[in-house]
């Protein structure tokens, strides 16, 4: 680890100005990826702005149509929240499947979403549940948020404050783990809102994406059979030592089918 300036602001305003003033800042929101990267000297920010003590960034609020989760809410708290389990059980289950217990007790939803790891779980829920990403100066629709490999619509120094999820009629998330890391080789989040269906896939491309062909097929027939023959092209799919592109394309269909089966069941 190289030297850096450590900030521990108490308020969002303080955090925002510290972030704006810094030359090369990183927002610390759990640090489950950032701290190991810094220890390996792969990341070397000049300033680290730790949101741990910032007021008002933690907690879960359930409304009539939405569940809003503060950016600094730990995965474990989402996993075990009775409110989330009741309103969107698929979201609680997803949180309970992230990493291992130590990661779930330190990692936060805001950290995960801002990082936009191509294989992270939360982005699939954000996109699949048509969520709104709230920041210190605006609101961003999920469809506009994830823009590429570790890239989002966030401006430099912009801080996520909360994620507002729409409550679906039914939803499920199924992932196929990479054998070493446990990250999703492919994860499918399927959500049904009345006659509309959203299918969000993580792990397969540079960032999470929707499969509209599947969404249309499921809108008229919400069953695994409806999408059994829909296979996405593998041109822009990730390929690595764990998973070739053609196999990833196949897994997208299988995971989506299984998510539909679980959501429908």
């Amino acid at each position, binding site marked *: 680890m190289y030297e850096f300036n450590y900030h521990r602001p108490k308020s969002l305003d303080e955090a925002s100005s510290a972030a704006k003033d810094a030359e090369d800042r990183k927002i610390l929101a759990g640090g489950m990826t950032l701290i190991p990267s810094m220890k390996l000297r792969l990341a070397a920010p000049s300033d680290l702005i730790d949101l741990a003590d910032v007021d008002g960034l933690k907690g879960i609020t359930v409304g009539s149509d939405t569940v809003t989760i503060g950016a600094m809410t730990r995965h474990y708290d989402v996993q075990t929240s009775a409110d989330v389990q009741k309103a969107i059980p698929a979201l609680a289950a997803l949180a309970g499947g992230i990493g291992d217990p130590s990661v779930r007790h330190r990692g936060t939803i805001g950290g995960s979403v801002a990082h936009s790891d191509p294989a992270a779980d939360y982005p699939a829920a954000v996109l699949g549940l048509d969520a709104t990403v709230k920041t210190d100066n605006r609101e961003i629709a999920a469809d506009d948020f994830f823009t590429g490999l570790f890239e989002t619509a966030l401006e430099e120094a912009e801080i996520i404050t909360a994620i507002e999820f729409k409550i679906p009629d039914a939803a499920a998330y199924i992932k*196929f783990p990479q*054998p*070493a*890391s446990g*990250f999703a080789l492919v994860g499918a989040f399927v959500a049904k809102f009345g006659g509309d269906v959203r299918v969000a896939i993580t792990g397969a491309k540079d960032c999470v994406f929707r499969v509209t062909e599947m969404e249309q097929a499921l809108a008229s027939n919400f069953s695994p059979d409806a999408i059994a023959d829909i296979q996405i092209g593998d041109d822009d799919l990730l390929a690595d*030592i*764990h998973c*070739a592109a053609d*196999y990833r394309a196949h897994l997208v269909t*299988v995971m989506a089918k299984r998510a539909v089966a679980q959501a429908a069941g």
Partner: protein
Amino acid sequence: MIGGGRYSDDFNFEGQVHLAFLRSPYAHGRITGIDIDAAKAAPGVLGVFTGQDMEADNVGRFETDIPLTELDGTEIFKTRRPALPTDKVRLAGEPVAVVVAETAHQARDAMELIDLQVEELPAVVTSLQAVAEGAAAVHDEKPDNCALHWENDTPDAYDAAAAKAHKIVKIELINNRVMPVPMEPKCCIAQVDDETGRMTVYAPFQGGRRVQGAVADFLFGGDGDMVRHISDNTGGGFGTRSKVYPEIIAICYAAKKLGRTVKWLGDRSETMVSDYHGRDQVNRAELAFDENAKILGYRLETLTNIGAWVTENGARLAIDGGGRILGGCYDIPVLYYSCRNMMTNTVSTDTYRGAGRPEANYIVERLMEKAARELGIDSKELRRRNFITTFPYTTQMGMKVDCGDFAACMDIALKEADWNNFEARKKESAARGKLRGFGLASFVEGAGGRPEELMRVRFEEDGSVNIYCGTFSHGQGHATVYSQILSDKLGIPFDSINLIQGDTDTAPAGASGTYGSRSSQMGGVAILRASDIIIEKGKKIAGHLLQAEADEVAFEDGNFKAREGSVTMQEVARAAHDPARLPDGLEPGLDETYHYKRPGGRTDQSFPNGCHICEVEVDPETGSVELLAYSAADDCGTVLNPLIVHGQVHGGVAQGIGQALTENLVYDEETGQLLTGSFMDYAMPRAKDLSDIKAEFNPIPSTNNELGVKGAGEAGCCGAPPAFVNAVLNALEPLGVKHLDMPLTPNNIWHAIHGAKNEGGPA
């Protein structure tokens, strides 16, 4: 678990300083310059050293002492590795310079200031690349990259046998490269005594004599008295901690040069790029059968990737290691074996649990399974027809297999695995859309390693008994087993016995270490023999005490008995420390060291064997494989402690399943960069990857040692890979899949299914 262990990193000394390695980012290139000025001037830096410094100080080199030759007498290519290279870098991660500073952070910061200039050369990564026409030469002096092309004979005899064959069955296989991964990373502390200049080295190791010898050879003109090695605890050995690495030499050099205590703790990434790896063979094999499905001959051609440097054992693993039991449990009348040891721009491969025997068993068991299909015979029946049944049996490689009952092991395992009801279970799986498979492997391995070991048994004045040894227990339970042996033999309380290990100052001179499943069969026997000498001396003392002649005294159940009266072992031991109670001319004390030499030497090892069975289920939609049940029947000879031997079987099986299911060490084939350099990409087997393991024993005492033990540590990883892969092949048979290479990851299985379908499905 009480946290009472003391690993090398737990040692800290006043005034210790820290070291960092600069490692080559290139897999292959010529060193044109190493600028260390900026590093030397960095805060806290005490010294920066390169290979040139070490060369100028006449530091020794890693010598290749492998007495194997090619058929025409050509000797093995000797790479003579320096601890830090001066001419070329030959693998990504190779240490090229060291920085010593007051703190570890300062050392690392300064290390990044070194400017290593390298003229890059094309990297040779796989053995197939190394053998190809026009490949770059890892060592300029050996343009064909082949360190040794070993053959047991010309192919003529095999060809003649094959010409008469009813059927020849061929297979091509990959024994995938894996990483041994001890839990404790590399670590070393070198400390120099200000007055005497004597060096003490703390490092995790499986037997410190090798460290002592190497450091003495490199830095002290071979004077072993100038070097002491200590390791209280070692967090996993697996063969990879029986090696002296260049890092240890460089650290000791720096400590000697600076006169300071130098400490280095490698992180996981450094450990992964520099620990020697295991396996990595490409095999082409065939068996010739007569019309009764009896084997007429075996032909095996192996390319093995031994990495950039010819190490202590790397180039002999496939020959001396796997060669011990090349044809497995089967009667092989004729053999042709060719093994080309290819040098590449990768880490060296060397001993890893099994060290050649897992590879050899894997090849022959895959081949037998394939042969059964092609011959249309049940694979169990094919094995039975070809099992060695007459002992002692001398193999084509000259090994004398003393005993075993391979058919009995198979029967036990089949019963354990409930083979008779497999079809019903298979139907139940099919009803859930899953493919169930049953796979079996019979195996034999050769255990014992170096055919001599020393043990010292000493009765202390307080009545306790110390065993001083050079073997090293890092989880094997030697303190338990050695104490059992000694307690049984001398009739003394188990709790009075202590094991003193991990210190070359207390180990008998010439004692060796723990590897090759040898500690019980070598160390245990040496304890037994040392005890015999103690009993003989005890008889003299007892005779004196009981006023009888020594030859009238008998020793039984811990008591020395004369015609009138008896004394216990402990009473005799007490008397032994009191010169007034000793017969004239007898040295006080009971303190004996026995140097045990195995009578048959290299060829009369022990031959642990067994039959392992896997039952698996494949999800054809994703290619995922689940291990449902594992049944092991092992003949490890006499079982001294069932709990400990079960533990050995379980551990070996877990590592075998790791190789077969999840583990695969991958280098980028163009750049030579390690792609599986962290646990994010290198998939260790997890608890969920395994099933319960049923293990039974079929103990047939070894005739090669008086304890009757055969060694148990490496059997599991011989049996598991072929049993597992054969089970998955059995499961996938309905889909027309005929071939698989390890590891059987979902990606690989799915492609095998997909490929088979592309070819038109089942014939």
